[in-house]
């Protein structure tokens, strides 16, 4: 059930997108509309996406967030959330991330999928995801909630495109049948010091389960994940705060490494 009018959705989309583009703190949208629900929140997110498309921005892929049990418990939710990746979020491996374009960035190590066949829920499961996967590769997502001090509720964060801001992909890929994604080890270093460690199972038991969930959530809207889609499946590690001058490097078992500098 949505509670917002089209005008209210458009107003919130303009507000949140302006905060993103100008790197300004936003007020929680639920402060203004306390009765907003998930449907409203995704309506705002899709309106932000449409604003970008109308300006000629292209979509680069999708992301799933809140995929760890710890985070879901912390937020009091049962299911993960999703957002979109725009073309200008992309930064090359070893490249620079301009911190003056962001508010208070954090980094998460993830396993990214690229599909070779469409996936349409309901009924998508780990097996269908692996069959539809072209390859996987290492990724670091830079999340940047527009809300002050990362203080938000689930509805507000969905409206804010699940805190998406930048991402960096590694360049070593693997076919899903050649690696054991559940046990894939992940080591994150900031300025040479190990700050986070984990294994693939931290993402819903298996990163492919995250893609299945995404396909099933989109299926409820009648949408599919097209062939050739990049999907960030959610943090294997907790999110780590980064500042200007930091250098982040992530090593993933059998998938090489990916790194970036915050300038």
């Amino acid at each position, binding site marked *: 059930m949505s509670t917002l009018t089209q005008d209210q959705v458009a107003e919130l989309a303009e507000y949140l997108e302006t905060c993103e583009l100008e790197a300004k703190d936003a007020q929680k949208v639920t402060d203004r509309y306390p009765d907003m629900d998930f449907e409203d929140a995704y309506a705002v997110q899709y309106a932000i996406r449409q604003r970008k498309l109308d300006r000629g921005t292209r979509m680069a892929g999708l992301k799933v967030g809140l995929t760890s049990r710890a985070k879901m418990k912390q937020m009091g939710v049962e299911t993960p959330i999703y957002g979109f990746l725009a073309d200008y979020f992309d930064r090359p491996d070893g490249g620079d991330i301009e911190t003056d374009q962001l508010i208070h960035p954090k980094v998460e190590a993830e396993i990214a999928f690229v599909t070779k066949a469409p996936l349409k829920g309901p009924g998508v499961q780990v097996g269908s995801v692996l069959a539809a996967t072209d390859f996987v590769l290492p990724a670091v997502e830079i999340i940047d909630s527009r809300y002050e001090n990362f203080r938000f509720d689930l509805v507000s964060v969905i409206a804010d495109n699940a805190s998406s801001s930048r991402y960096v992909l590694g360049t070593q890929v693997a076919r899903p049948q050649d690696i054991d994604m559940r*046990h894939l*080890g992940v080591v994150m270093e900031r300025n040479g010091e190990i700050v986070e460690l984990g294994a693939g*199972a931290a993402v819903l038991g298996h990163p492919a389960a995250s893609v299945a969930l995404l396909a099933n959530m989109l299926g409820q809207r009648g949408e599919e994940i097209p062939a050739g889609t990049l999907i960030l499946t959610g943090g294997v590690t907790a999110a780590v705060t980064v500042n200007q001058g930091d250098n982040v490097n992530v090593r993933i078992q059998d998938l090489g490494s990916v790194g970036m500098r915050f300038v």
Partner: protein
Amino acid sequence: MNEQRIQELGDDLYAALRGKQMIDPLTEREPEMTIEDAYHVSLRMVQRRVDDGERIIGKKIGVTSKAVQNMLNVHQPDFGYLTDRMVYGDGEEMPISEQLIQPRAEGEIAFILKDDLEGPGVTNADVLAATEAVMPCFEIVDSRIRDWKIKIQDTVADNASCGLFVLGSQAVSPRDVDLSTVGMVVEKNGEIISTGAGAAALGSPVNCVAWLANTLGRFGIPLKAGEVILSGSLVPLEPIKAGDFMRVGIGGIGSASVRFV
């Protein structure tokens, strides 16, 4: 500490182990005890076990994670001795209620040596060349010290809080895996409770074994061909009780499981 005092404390720990009785921290009774004193106490405790007919089959390395080093306010690992009475097979029942006091489980990588390693001067290359295989492992640590109120000297004296351990049924050459990035998934009663990676132990489990070989080398003690070396936990310690079932899976290495009774 004089020899008599070292023997007394070692005997107290041995009695606590056999009688399943917790004792007060040794550092409360002997505030001046050094880490070297503590190793002498641990040797006495182990000698009592050997006198009972137990055979030393390897060593364990502890205090390898940043979190535990910060908790104990030290910047080096410690070690203890493994005996034949401590080891269990993959999937076996482990009688913790009969043998242990306040057990906690750790997921680790075990090294099986094919050549001796004697420090100083042992490098990671030497460790890899001397290792026949690495295996998945659960170490069940236990403290004879009341409520785990340990300082570094307490745990060193108490055989590095060693209890029992389980080896998996797969072994792979260390040449076939990157031990720094291997992932670990630990399940308890079917639920994933933690994940980690090799780098959690001093940056790499290989660094831990090199540290041990070099530390023991200063006393002229080699790591011997055939010995089992437990290289340190890659995940947080998990308290366990009879009835629990646990499984650890390590990417590229295999898995080990254990039922606690």
